[in-house]
């Protein structure tokens, strides 16, 4: 809060560089005046972010699971995953467009690539940190790899997963915005470049504020679902349906 005030004053008095840092009040005004444009453009970006994040989470679990069950796949996929993170998007932009077209697909793919990685790394780390004795006991019961995964590794990697998820959620929206620089007609990313090109930095900051708020909101949601993903850490007793 105090920071915001300081910023406002600094901008008004002219301490800040021209054009590129608007006063917070200007940003707020832009946010309001431009709400229709923002809303329209948000839609695409949000959809991309959601689909990308959802598929990213899904794929992360899927890959982590098969990488755990099939050890050689782990050795093969792990480096490939790292490599996908080390390729600057802009460098391969034409390839993506060429293969996936101009629509949402390549952007969703980028969001998936961004959000999948922190999650899969944390799940795999969670698997590796599962209690060895707990696994041994399960093996004594006659459990196969799959059952060990199901009954020990997955539940005990939940905290790790949440840690990765928080990172991924923070990335989901901004990566959806950045992905739009691949080209397209709609979306906050497109809007952002355009406003920048037109020296409408207040509008550009309005976009940034919007993304930040969205990201913060969904970070909050993650903290909230933490209780549902690891109920044993928060409750003495499991609620059973039909019980009062």
């Amino acid at each position: 809060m105090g920071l915001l005030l300081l910023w406002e004053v600094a901008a008004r008095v002219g301490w800040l560089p021209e054009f590129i840092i608007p006063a917070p009040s200007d940003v707020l005004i832009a946010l309001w005046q431009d709400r229709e444009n923002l809303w329209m453009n948000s839609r695409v970006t949000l959809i991309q972010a959601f689909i990308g994040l959802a598929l990213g989470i899904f794929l992360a679990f899927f890959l982590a699971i098969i990488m755990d069950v099939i050890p050689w796949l782990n050795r093969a996929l792990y480096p490939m995953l790292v490599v996908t993170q080390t390729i600057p998007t802009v460098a391969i932009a034409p390839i993506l467009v060429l293969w996936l077209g101009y629509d949402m697909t390549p952007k969703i793919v980028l969001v998936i690539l961004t959000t999948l990685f922190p999650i899969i790394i944390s799940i795999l780390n969670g698997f590796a940190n599962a209690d060895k004795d707990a696994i041994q006991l399960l093996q004594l019961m006659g459990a196969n790899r799959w059952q060990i995964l199901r009954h020990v590794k997955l539940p005990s990697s939940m905290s790790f997963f949440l840690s990765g998820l928080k990172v991924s959620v923070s990335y989901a929206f901004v990566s959806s915005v950045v992905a739009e620089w691949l080209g397209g007609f709609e979306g906050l990313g497109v809007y952002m470049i355009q406003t920048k090109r037109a020296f409408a930095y207040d509008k550009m900051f309005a976009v940034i504020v919007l993304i930040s708020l969205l990201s913060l909101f969904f970070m909050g949601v993650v903290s909230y679902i933490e209780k549902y993903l690891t109920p044993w850490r928060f409750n003495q007793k499991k609620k059973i349906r039909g019980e009062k």
Partner: protein
Amino acid sequence: MLSIQDVGFRYGDRQVLKNINIQLQKGETVAIIGPSGVGKTTLFNLIAGIIDAQQGQIELDGSKEIKGKISYMLQKDMLYPHYTVIENIMLPRIIQGESKKHAQEHALELLDIFQFKEWANYYPHALSGGMRQRVAFMRTAAFDRPWLLLDEAFSALDAITRRQLHQWFKNYREKMGWSSLIITHDVDEALILSDRVYIIKGQPGEITFELPVDFKGFDVEKIIFEPEFIEAKRQLLNELKES
């Protein structure tokens, strides 16, 4: 028959067990006692196949394939914190491919016997130490296999609860045809439950003493005050003390 022949084991360069020979006949209960850290739990881990014997052989009915034929109650309770009491007890049967419904029915039966039904839906962290141990015991019973390894199965229980479990165990092993190897630090318990007591002692641990016992005929309540029992106990304690 479970036969342990000349088994030895070393952790790194520390020899923990040496020349262990034990035969467990079908239907027998054999107790193992010995000082803390001598290698009793290690021996069980060897039998269960969690670690591999570096010397000697372990065979069950002439086969080295032991995994899957033995129920093992670990010394630490190892309840799965993310599962409730009943889910923990259902787990062995679920793993063995039983339907959820059947596993649950069976778990409820066990919970009934042990008067533990009201705790069925609690998570382990809300249980007391002795309650956790009882859940672990029920879970081991749910393995439903004829050979049992019980490592300090009753150590966290008060005298009365323990006596109840002893009684239950004695009845059940006959009914189910269980053959068990039990580790205990309670000499009374060893005498009450077993057909034979082995003492493992020394560094590395070796079997130094073997005592056949038979207090099956006695009432569990009174047994500990019987002179024969007291004599056997004194004998074991003396043997343990010498070093």
